[in-house]
């Protein structure tokens, strides 16, 4: 059963058409890696899935709820979909602990003790329980991104979206973030990951997609995608990055 379904999703920024009709679906527990050159619409697409961007045509159905302008639906979907950004976007005025408990307390209406317990559990899972009382500005990029993952997980989402989570990191820090993501993938989380980390795609992805110029060029299993790509565009892309 698919947890995300999109039908012919189109989006324009002014005159520029960013998405030219994307149709796809994601099954529960599936790990989907989306790659493609910059400007190909891959980030725009996953941002449409939790309505950070608004699509103009087509249909997006997440967990049985269709995304429309209804604010209640949007909030309901957002609390089921966790998102990790390229630039972390932690709240700089709150401690790591507060960053993680905030949404639990205000959106999930849990009490403080319960949400702090959950936060500690998650910090342990991402490997930085000792940083709980620090401010985001005092952490390294890799640690910040792991806090961001913990913050998203604190909402107990059914789906996690990763928008180039390692692009802003030093090579040494990439590994620590990828390790957390691999562990997450193995635990059965539904994930859509926009990334250029082909190693990650090979290792944990169930499916790989290639976007180019707003279109879905290729959709394949990792083995097929890397060893036996269908389209020439994929071959060109792979030859450039591998």
């Amino acid at each position, binding site marked *: 059963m698919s947890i995300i379904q999109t039908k012919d999703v189109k989006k324009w920024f002014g005159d520029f058409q960013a998405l030219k009709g994307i149709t796809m679906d994601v099954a529960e527990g599936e790990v989907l890696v989306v790659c493609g050159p910059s400007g190909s619409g891959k980030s725009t697409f996953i941002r449409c899935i939790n309505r950070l961007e608004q699509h103009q045509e087509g249909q997006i159905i997440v967990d049985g709820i269709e995304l429309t302008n209804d604010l209640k639906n949007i909030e309901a979907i957002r609390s089921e979909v*966790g998102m990790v*950004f390229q630039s972390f*976007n932690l*709240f700089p005025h709150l401690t790591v602990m507060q960053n993680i408990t*905030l949404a639990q307390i205000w*959106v999930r*209406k849990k009490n403080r003790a319960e949400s702090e317990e959950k936060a500690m559990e998650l910090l342990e899972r991402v490997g930085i329980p000792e940083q709980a009382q620090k401010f985001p*500005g005092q952490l390294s990029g890799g640690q910040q991104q792991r806090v961001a993952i913990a913050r*998203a997980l604190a*909402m107990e989402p059914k789906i996690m979206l990763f928008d180039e989570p390692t692009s802003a990191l030093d090579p040494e820090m990439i590994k620590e973030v990828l390790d957390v993501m691999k562990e997450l993938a193995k635990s059965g989380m539904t994930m859509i990951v926009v990334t250029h980390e082909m190693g990650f795609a090979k290792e944990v992805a169930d499916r790989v997609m290639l976007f180019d110029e707003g279109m879905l060029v290729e959709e394949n299993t990792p083995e097929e995608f890397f060893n036996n790509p269908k389209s020439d565009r994929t071959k060109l892309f792979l030859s450039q990055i591998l």
Partner: protein
Amino acid sequence: MVDLIKKNAKSLQESLFSSVGSAVLTIATTYLVINFFRGMLGFALTSDKDWLAVLNNMQLYMVQAYPEEDFIRVWLSVGLTFVLAGLSIGIWRSDDRVKSSQVFNSFFKGGLGVLFFTIIAPTNASFMGNDGSVITEEVFSMDTRLGILIPVAVFCVIFFSIRFINVKFTVNSSDMVFFYLFIPVALLWFVKLPTIQLDQNNERIIPDPVMPIADTTKIPWTVIFVSFLVSYFIGMYLKSIKSIKSIMSLSWFLLPLLIFSWIFKKPQIDMSVVLGSDLPIFGVFLLWGFLVITFVNNSIFKKYYSTYLGVTFLLTLVGVFSGLPMLAKTCLLLIALFSVVVPAVSTSSQGKRSLLIVWAVALVTLTFLLRGGASDTGIVVPGSSIFGGFSLTWLLAIFGTYVSFPLGVLLALGRNSKLPIIRIVCTGIIELTRSVPYITWLFFASVTLAVFLPAGVEFNLIVRVLMVTAFFSGAYFAENIRGGLQSIPKGQYEAADAIGMSPFQKISLIIMPQALRAVIPTLVSSAITAFKDSSLVTIIGLFDFLTIGKTVIGNQSIPVNFVGHDRENLIFVAIVYWIFTFTLSRRSMKVEKKLGLGER
């Protein structure tokens, strides 16, 4: 010791005379500074100054014409502030330690202050005698002066040099506060000041030029000091209570309201109004809030909640411009704002219960304060206002900020709103208020505002001044805050959205705290400007702190002729203004430092 002098001399040489150029610059600058301040120095060093004009009129400065038989109310206001300060220090600061070097440093600076005042204190005081002749009395002899100067100077040198010797211990910072407060209070009992009083026949008399300070001053201050100490210890005891800090913050917010509506005002309560109008209104709104909280999760009510909100806001708008009692208007505003918050908080039964308590307490407080504020005052004063001098300046400063700051936040958010009507209205208010001089608004308040208010609505002059002040400084606050809002990266909005926060939560928990932190310096300078601008109310006939010094005392000829003593009065007024604004800016720097923690 010799090493020390050598070391200092060397560092002086290095910083002032390191090259020919810097030596020339040092000498030239010193010459210019001395020349520039010669007038001031001359004034400080001559004996030709009359601080009696200030000392004798302290009461006028503080409360203008507030009747002496009701002074207990003034003391109660000051005392309550000190009690609250004591509690706060006990709760927040009782563990803070100060390093020995800081202690010595502050003693050194304090000593310099004493030296300064001993030097500028006048030797003689001149009075105009009963027959019109000028009598000059020596009030501060050279012996006394030297008796203070020499020991204090020695102490200063000791405290200055002791910092270089390796003495290291820490002192509780609140002990320092007590010490600094103890000195002036203790001095009240020993120092004698020249005072002038009238005899029974209301003729000018010159009593012994050196009089002990009156019991009416020193006994209240001593009581206040003792209660300050006692409340400090109570505060240390209360520290362990969980929500004490929020209670204290709320008390600080409510204290000025309580002072101005009940303590200072001495309201004459008409029981028939309380029973006939206040209680029914209170009951209606208590029930209203109770119903909203109870049925907020009811599916039908939930569906039409936005309609309900719209209707409530419309009712509030109509209510504010109608002939309803003040209490009903304020309650309408309160229930409208309250209704916005209710759905976000009342999802659990625990949340509902605490909301209900908050609502009941807020209503009781509001009714109590408004009954005091709206009643006639029992204080009989000549002129239109029981507030004058420092009490008026303080009232304008505090209430100006109370109303204008939230207004500024709302206007800034409104100006950024996606809804065109709200955006246009807010932009209009901001641009209109900012582009007209404050003095024009003051005249507007005193002369024409009544014309624009609906028939039957009438406000006291001070309330009208507060209204225009709130909008005027609110517009400035709004523009500052808008600057802060623009500094928040888009990613913060998206992150808040992505974890499913409602727009209200996003603004109040994520965006506003960061935006305000970014603009603390400009907010504080706006607040300082507003505080100083309060002296402009003199133009519509209110007697603020400055007006007392310049106009009232400057024209006073009974019992003593103080005409022509502007110099001393203006210096005093300037110092008092400076103390408050400087403290404010220092406090804000500390807050900034504290909040800046996350940036590093």
